[in-house]
């Protein structure tokens, strides 16, 4: 039993790494534009299907699909951004509905292009088992987790040190003041949106190498990403990482101790409990929601 629980904790942490990437993209576009991109999970899934396409058509490693995924997702993100930018009236409500609609379009486009079958990588290298003491993992899971860590550090560095990263933080904390300092909020928002798209691309390809994908997954990913941002509170990368690990571990433990049917229930209940009891998220934050 202890072994099973240890295994669940380990697997939960590994999938949590990819969840963190998905959630960081959502949090970044939310931070910069104050809108929740309800199509974010579908962008991740789009990248995952790029990996599937490259693997099945060329026989290359799924990670070879990253340039294609970046291109496709950045293109869709840019179009999405231009549409959101056009909204003048009731921006919060209408952007929510607009991104939701784009999510519906992407889900059905994926369904049309790839059918509703469940897909996963065929690469034997990625599916090789690695044993660490009494727990084991697939090579793909370890690589994906490593990639997540590297990207999180890169994002942290970008936000902290680069000009555009600082601009994103400036626009996020005070739009008017940032404009006075010579930052173009429109362009900064676009950059933040594209970086969020890049994170989604990596997350999608990583997801494909370690898990199974199907068209309906996009919506579920959006919800998971949102749950994690709520768990984390506003504006903290370590918070998002820990929130993602918590969600991954909670799901894995529920599957091991109860049943896989209850996996999503556990995440949702965790979400509501945090929402009601800790309005600022688990890991403290400056701004209060609402």
């Amino acid at each position, binding site marked *: 039993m202890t072994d099973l629980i240890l295994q669940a904790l380990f697997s939960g942490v590994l999938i949590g790494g990819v969840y963190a990437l998905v959630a960081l993209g959502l949090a970044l576009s939310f931070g910069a534009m104050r809108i929740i991109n309800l199509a974010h999970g579908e962008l991740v899934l789009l990248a995952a299907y790029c990996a599937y396409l490259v693997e099945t058509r060329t026989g290359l490693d799924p990670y070879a699909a990253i340039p294609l995924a970046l291109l496709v997702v950045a293109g869709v993100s840019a179009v999405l951004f231009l549409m959101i930018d056009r909204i003048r009236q009731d921006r919060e*409500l209408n952007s*929510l509905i*607009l991104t939701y609609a784009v999510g519906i379009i992407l889900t*059905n486009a994926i*369904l049309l292009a790839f059918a509703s079958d469940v897909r996963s990588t065929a690469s034997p290298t990625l599916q090789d088992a690695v044993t660490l003491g009494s727990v084991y993992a697939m090579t793909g899971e370890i690589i994906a987790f490593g990639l997540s860590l590297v990207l999180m550090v890169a994002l942290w560095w970008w936000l902290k040190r680069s000009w555009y990263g600082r601009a994103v933080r400036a626009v996020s904390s005070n739009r008017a003041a940032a404009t006075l300092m010579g930052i173009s909020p429109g362009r900064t928002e676009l950059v933040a949106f594209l970086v969020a798209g890049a994170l989604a691309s990596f997350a999608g390809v990583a997801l494909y190498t370690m898990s199974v994908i199907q068209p309906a997954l996009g919506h579920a990913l959006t*919800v998971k990403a949102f749950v994690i941002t709520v768990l984390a509170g506003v504006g903290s990368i370590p918070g998002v990482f820990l929130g993602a690990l918590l969600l991954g571990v909670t799901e894995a433990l529920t599957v091991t101790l109860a049943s896989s049917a209850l996996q999503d229930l556990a995440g949702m209940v965790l979400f509501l409990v945090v*929402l009601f009891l800790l309005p600022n998220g688990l890991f403290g934050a400056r701004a209060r929601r609402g």
Partner: protein
Amino acid sequence: MAPAHRDPRIPAPASGKPWRNAALVGACLVLAALPVLLGASNYLLGLLISALILSGIALAWALLGNLGGMVSFGHAAFFGVGAYASALISARLGVPVLLAIPLAGLCAALSALAMLPTLRLSGPYFALAILAYAQIFRILATEATGLTGGGAGLQRFPGLPTILGLDLGSRTGSYGLLVAMVALSALAYEAIRRSHVGTALRAIAHSEDATRVVGVNSVLLKAWMLLLSAFMTGVFGALNAHIIGFLEPAYAFSGLWSVMPIIAAIFGGYRTVLGPIGGAIVIYLFDQLVAKDLIAVGHQILLGLVLVVMVLIAPNGLLGLLKRRAGGRPHADA
């Protein structure tokens, strides 16, 4: 809480001229009677029945969105609760179906009580918290096999009865019943909109803080709107269950019951009463007759496109667009 003087900055409810409203109601009734008078096929009546079910939910969604200022992505929760409650109350307790349906509405409103804490949340947080509830409800309904029959489904429950010689279970009877129910819901919506409560809700939409300062309990009013919206959705879920005669969690709590009303209400104009009703009929018939024909699997892609176009070009919906074209106010207020 009823304000004695109306603040001139708060737009008055669109009252219109009485004869115009009467003419509108008359036109709607004639339009509603037309399919029956022209002897429409059972297939067409079946489509219209489903469209009217959707009209009811879209109206309930718009009530919450317009009067309560809350966007819900989880009306499937109320629809499913209403459907199962009515089926179980009528089958297990032997309550007459026509009594079970309003009771099911009450059950849906009761289930909304569990969501009251979400009223503290604003905008996207509320929308997604409701979505979380809808998922929780679906999973619970699937797991509670003793009560709901789980994934195997539930089909041993009575259909609509015959009242005064009119078989409500027949296509024509069900159609008539649904026209009446949608009309009743629209009247209730309109009555609230014109009441002091409606005035207070419009004020909340402008500035919640300012409205609270003058002594309006905004959270209470929003809570009532949530419960009422849940009740209406539950009633239509119950009607649908008795007409279809079969329930399973994947159907009764399907995300479609959350998505379709949003598309319908936005398409028609969610800040009007007739918009969601007409929008639902147009959208449903378009989806079933046109979109499904063009693309068998994934036909909702067209609905997504419609929604994108509406938000970008006419965020006030078709009715809002028409009003603007007609030289009315720049945008239709609550």
